[in-house]
């Protein structure tokens, strides 16, 4: 049993000063020790992408990082997407396009899409499909997820 270490995680702009066991994954740290349960565990071995968060604006599988590695880094999760009561264009697009059914994979897709659209606002359809194929969904059959992310991309380009 190793000693806990003090770290500072900044999640959606809020600082969490916590003591972590180094073996706690970032996903478990965010969920169980910072109270942000929007990030979900689908497989815990880096295949499904349900646990995707943004670490310093980069989409990352939080089950493949340890919480202690995120000390001092800027983390964004699904709970931070909306701007107060105003939905993020991706959230709106997902609802308008019926891009979720059970909603379990949704936070992972939202954060993956946020990351790629911020990094490459002009990304083309085929390349976007390639990025979105990183995550698994068992409910929707993906078609509406594609529609929603494209719609959000187009919307976000307009307001830039």
């Amino acid at each position, binding site marked *: 049993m190793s000693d806990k270490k003090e770290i500072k995680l900044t999640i959606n702009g809020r600082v969490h000063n916590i003591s972590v066991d180094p073996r706690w994954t970032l996903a478990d740290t965010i*969920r169980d020790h910072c109270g942000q349960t929007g990030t979900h565990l689908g497989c815990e*071995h880096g295949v499904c992408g349900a646990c995707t968060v943004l670490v310093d604006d980069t989409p990352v599988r939080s089950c493949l990082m340890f919480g202690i590695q995120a000390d001092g880094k800027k983390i964004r999760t699904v709970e931070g997407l*909306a701007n107060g009561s105003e939905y993020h264009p991706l959230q709106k697009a997902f609802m308008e396009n019926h891009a979720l059914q*059970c909603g379990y994979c949704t936070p992972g897709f939202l954060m993956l899409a946020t990351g790629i659209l911020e990094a490459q606002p002009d990304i083309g359809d085929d390349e976007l499909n390639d990025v*979105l194929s990183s995550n698994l969904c068992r409910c929707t059959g993906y078609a509406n997820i594609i529609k929603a992310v494209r719609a959000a991309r187009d919307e976000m380009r307009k307001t830039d």
Partner: protein
Amino acid sequence: MATATNRMLGHLGDSVERLEDPPLVTGKGKFVGDINFPDQLHMRVVRSAHAHGAIKSVDTSAAEAFPGVIAVWTNTDIDDVPPIDFREGSDPTLALFRQYPLARELVRYVGDPVAAVFAEDPYTAEDAAELVILDIDPLPVLINADDTPQDFMGKATTEAAVVEQGYGDIETTFDKAYKVVEIDVKVSRHTGVPMECRGAIGRYDEARDVLEMYGAAKVPHRNRDTLCRMLNRPASGVHLFEGHTGGGFGIRGELYPEDVLVCVAAMRLGRPVKWIEDRQEHLMAANHSRQQRHIIRAAVAEDGEVVGLDDELYLDQGGYIRTHGTRVANMTTGTLPGPYRFPVYRSVCHFRLTNKTPAATYRSPGRCESTFVRERLMDAVAVAMDMDPIAVRRRNLISLEEMPYGRALDVLGDSVEHDPGDYAGLLDQGLAQIGWDDLQKQLEERRSNGEMVGAGISMFFEKSGLGPSDGAKIFIDNSGYIEVVTGGASIGQGFETAMAQIAAEDLGTDYRRIRVVHGQTNRIDYGVGAHASRATVLTGTAVSLTAQAVRAKALDMAAELMQTTADSLTITDGAVHSKNNPTGPSLTLGEIAEALLPTSKIRGDREPYLKGEEWFHIDHQTYPYGHHIAVVKVDPDTGGVEIEKYFIAYDIGRSINPMMIEGQLVGGLAQGVGGALFEEFTYTEAGDPQAVTFADYLMPTLQETPEPEILLTEDFPSIRTPLGIKGAGEAGITGAAGAIASAIDNAIGIPGAVTETPVSPQRLKTILREHGK
């Protein structure tokens, strides 16, 4: 008063956004893993690494001594807890094959729970679980359901049951047949694999003597009843709560050993007990499904009519019989004829135990398997008779004129009676829409240029709306806000929105003013949950009848208040007004509710409150129908299959929310593609599972999943319910394997090539090589 015309109120037929979505897109959902109670313990299950063996001893001492561990249980600690019974009631002939929450004497599959560790946190629990030492004497392992059955505990054999259905004289029909066509086909072992693993939290409120279970799904009331029987508690002292659930597909929500364990532990250890399964456990411990082998033959007349169908099948049940008993066998044998007449029929199902994960229902259970088998056979008949595969199907389809069409078959206790539908008519529409004849010409030309391309079709019928009954409650408060309480369940399919739209239609309100309650056994006495595509049909109709009753009550009160007659009034966007005067005087539902308060002086003799409770009883299930068409391209060098085009035609009877229905079809197809091309649980001869990670159990990503073109018709509203609705949950998956197999045969030019799923590149290469291609 806002005009209802410039915004959708979410009535029947409106593709409105779902009520479920806002918490889910903001990360505010409460899946069972997100729920925590003060002082909770975490449970970790210790599972057998042997596929079959006698338990000699379980040494828990090191685990118990591990810091942070509160208790470690084996079956000895809970020997008063009976095995998990069948959901639909006891069955003495099958009782022997049930599973105890922790194995007693024997383990029967890798993953079989043998011990449970209760610790302060999940990391500690997993550490301690590794210290439990299982001493197991291996016993012979039975892997194949079509091998000779073995002894079962000296009291029976592993052929737990033989389920047979049929009608007519098989022997004579086959003796006299013009031609007999026989095939031997297999469906692989695969299952739902939702994105959320299973989980449950047991909590005992000692102050009120109430046992609570969180993480319930699918059939909370039934599970409540089973737990009451098992633990000898009254229904008022056991409450099950369904929060958000990350997909079900038939897998989640049946009563599992772990659910029972958290409940018993919460009571006996005096602290809430939380169990969240991991993915590796899920793939070896949650219900598997589908694995069947059929040897099936058709007796064919000279004009292509299939005058007899004779089927023998082996159903691989795995290590135990769980809550479904032999229902999958019943559904397979009962639905195998599908949309075809088959005047003489027999299906004999050898329901056999093996040393693998127990199997049960997965989306479209029995129909998915039987549709694949039957459609393969219809293709084989076409080849044998040198007939076009569509012509053969037409020759055999039940016609509209023959409906309702009864068969001497049973599906889940309901005698089969097809409700009216035009199977051939929808086929005409589908073929026209996809341009079948032109498609065939294009494919022929591409084949002559060396491409391996082809098209295939699969026709099916589905079943939905299993009864017998369901009820609903509606309450409208002083603000006009409506609560609909059901015994339904939500597994992500949009149940709340569907019920709200039905209620909104009948109450004349905006669906956004409606809260739908489901999965809370303490809010309503009875519920059917959500399975068998029954929620929309059964619960939906109950909601409709209740809403109509509440509407009548509201209009009756309003008529007195407005000094007119009830039949001159209507409700628009929550306000009651005269039909002839939409912008005239009106009363809101809230004002009417206020008038009906117990203390209200104007209530008169009327029962207090604007509320209602009604029941709906259905005689027979409904049988929606349709077909799938697939166009594929095969790479002869790699054996890879690309689905170029996909088409689904389906008659839904009446839509509540077309966007949600299409979502069900598209999502179902993705799982169908998975089953046809990718998903398979395999085992070594010793019974070790080989697909226990997502690197081995392959599910389609976005790149492998086609977006289907959909033809959704409402030509034949169901006669079983006043709403005319039929279920949509399973149609997307049912026809997939048959259509894809048919298309692959066509593409490679080898009729009958595909005899098993999944059609992996390696399997396809083997077929090509064996045929010199």
